[in-house]
């Protein structure tokens, strides 16, 4: 029994952020309510992200009404690979991934082959709210397929690995790589059995990997090594995440980023209520880092400054081991601790 419980004093000492504190001290303080729809609707997120020149999977089509399905079917035939998503879907529901098209029809990522009518029915169901939260009528997004970087192929199972970064007031404070497993049914939620790999903010290297709150060293399905992961394009990825703050004005933000083998980091989704499991994957509490950022003077700090500050401050490695992409002298780092 004693192994199953931990005293609040221990959690406090480690700076673990609890749900109540997250809601009161961070979400309700730093996330303005009127900004929530920006991130709850994937189409709006995508549109503002494209406007701000953030890298996202390219938006190919938006289907808003049933008769638009007829209009775009000619375009669909020309596409070899694409992804259909409901704008307000949750938990990966209603996402259709087409990886190939030939005379037989459209090939899904699972290998099943669909014909055009199946796709049209899927679109129609999406519009009528079958896949959206609460069954509200929805909009279907058709975007380009993300190709998993070969660096991750040995640890990918049923879905693209994505990187969750907590961005607080524009500073990336903590990150983890989320790997879907067979147990999590292709979903990237840690509490459903996905593997979470804590990532060092300075380097993008793996810290530890957990599944169901237990340390693991290999991917349970592919057997791939989880201890030696290093996320490529890490500074670029942090930069992408940090810029989301300017775009959304949300102070406490979860950014979900995937790495495309050709295009590099692409912003997939934003979350105004990011979960707390990231602390387990990092074996570290969020609070000290959040407090550190809270104490910064925050005027006219550029994205580069913020990323630089985060990489220096929140890394497990000493500064001279880091490959800092921007200022290496540390003079104009992102603010000073007051």
């Amino acid at each position, binding site marked *: 029994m004693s*192994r*199953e*419980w*931990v*005293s*609040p004093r*221990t*959690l*406090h000492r*480690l700076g*673990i952020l*609890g*749900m*109540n*504190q997250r809601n*009161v*001290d961070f979400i309700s303080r730093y996330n303005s309510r009127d900004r929530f729809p920006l991130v709850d609707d994937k189409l709006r997120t995508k549109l503002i992200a494209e406007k701000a020149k953030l890298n996202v999977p390219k938006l190919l089509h938006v289907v808003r009404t049933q008769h638009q399905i007829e209009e775009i079917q000619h375009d669909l035939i020309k596409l070899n690979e694409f992804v259909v998503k409901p704008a307000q879907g*949750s*938990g990966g*529901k209603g996402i259709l991934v087409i990886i190939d098209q030939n005379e037989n029809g459209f090939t899904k990522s699972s290998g099943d082959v669909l014909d055009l009518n199946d796709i049209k029915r899927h679109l129609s*169901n999406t519009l*009528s*709210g*079958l896949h959206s939260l*609460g*069954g*509200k009528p929805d909009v279907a997004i058709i975007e380009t397929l993300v190709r998993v970087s070969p660096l991750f192929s040995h640890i990918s199972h049923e879905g693209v690995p994505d990187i969750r970064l907590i961005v607080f007031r524009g500073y990336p404070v903590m990150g983890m790589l989320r790997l879907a497993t067979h147990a999590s*049914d292709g979903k990237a939620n840690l509490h*459903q059995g996905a593997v979470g790999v804590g990532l060092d903010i300075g380097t993008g290297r793996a810290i530890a990997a*957990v599944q169901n*709150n*237990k340390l693991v060293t290999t991917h349970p399905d592919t057997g791939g090594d989880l201890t030696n992961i290093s996320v490529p394009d890490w500074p670029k990825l942090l930069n992408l995440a940090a810029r989301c703050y300017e775009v959304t004005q949300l102070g406490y933000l979860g950014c979900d980023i995937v790495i495309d083998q050709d295009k590099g980091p692409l912003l997939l989704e934003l979350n105004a209520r990011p979960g707390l499991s990231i*602390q*387990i994957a990092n*074996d570290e*509490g969020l609070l000290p880092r959040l407090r550190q950022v809270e104490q910064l003077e925050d005027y006219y700090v550029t994205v580069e400054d913020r990323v630089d500050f985060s990489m220096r401050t929140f890394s497990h490695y000493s500064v001279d081991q880091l490959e800092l992409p921007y200022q290496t002298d540390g003079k104009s780092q992102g603010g000073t601790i007051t």
Partner: protein
Amino acid sequence: MFLVVLLLVTGLGTATFRHNAYRIPLLPGTQQTVWQVEARVEYFADGGSTQVLLTLPPEQRGFRSINESSASSGFGFELSTHGGQQRAHWTKRNASGEQVLYYKLELVQDAGYRVPAEEPKSEPSRAWDEPYLTAALQVLQAEIPESADEKSLAQQLTRQMNRERLDQNLSLLLDKYSEPELLHDLLNTAGASARAVQVLELQDGRRRQSLKEFVQVWQDGEWHLIDPSRGLVTDDRQLLLWQTTTPAVLEVLGGTNSGVTFSMISQSRSAAALTSERAPGYDISLYSLPIAEQGMFKLIMLLPVGALVVVLMRVLVGLKTSGTFMPVLIALAFLQTELVPGLVSFILVVSLGLTIRSYLSDLNLLLVARIATLVILVIGIITVFSVLSYQFGFNAGLTITFFPMIILAWTIERMSITWEEAGPQEVLLQGGGSLLVATLAFLVMDQEITRHLAFNFPELHFCVLAVILLLGRYTGYRLLELHRFAVFKK
């Protein structure tokens, strides 16, 4: 913070003030018995003008009258006083055939309620005829020396009259006079003040009762009641004096075959409801509402308490429930069904609903249509369940109709979506959490003290609000997070 203090002070202050000023008890324990007595007069009217006079019970100690009313269609009604006692007076110009008149009285049984005793009127004692005079005098001669005062004489006489083997004199007298009559006459002849009274024995739920003849004897400035067949009455809490003067209880003019019978029920009402009926500000309080609406408010006023339990369980414990305030509504239903039947029927309906709902998934229905289908489904399940349980003799099964059906439908829908998205384990977790919170809310709401305070001191809800506001700013760990983050234990 200031708001919280303000709310607490307002709530507690008002409650204290109302408790002190209007004597509304803080604890529910002080229940008082209220008797509803209904006199039913029946007679056959001759066809002409008709009058009915019914003697009404006098002010007496032990009973406080709080309400009286009469129901009699087409009759004129007024109260009149006659010979020191109130009478109900019904009149009608033309009446024929069977007539029924009702007179209803509400009395609070209150041992502390006293009225000044009515002095005995000097009545001429009976002029006895021979041989009864001799017999009476002999009885008294035998009994008076053995008694100390009026009470004990009466006691003595009653005992003699009720013996298996009667004294010769008494048996002669009892051939001519009834027991109460004889007792009363003998006492008067002995120089004591005694009177014949009509008494109603109050027993809960009795119908068609009639009055009984008792005797009262005056001593030490008080009337003492004597049951002619049992002697001195020591416990008169359930005896209502109806008639103390000589005229008949019922007088009917222009009718025949008249009779009066009495029915009564007793209710336990909290002293609060009774005192508050006299409190100032009564007109703008909850008590002024009709009984049915008051009953509704008794439930409504419990909702904040249930909401508080939900907030506590969510913020301090971190229990997952399916639908935030659904457990409160379920708890409210439990109040009607009782806990165990409620739990059983809830689980039955929801699991049956989930089973059928899984077939609905294949139909790819739109949300509103799906919910509507579920509502009908739930009603169907409840109907079948009620009929079956009635057929098999489980009356508890009938209370299932108290469950809010729309809420049940939504619960099933949400749980089924959870099932599809997060698996059966999550459904069990949320369903169990919901039932746990509902049970806790029920246990709190079902407490007599909670019901009492919530209804009689609605201002205490300011305090509930204050606590909820405080909890809304609580940033500590939830109990279940201590388990969730157990990996950090080193």
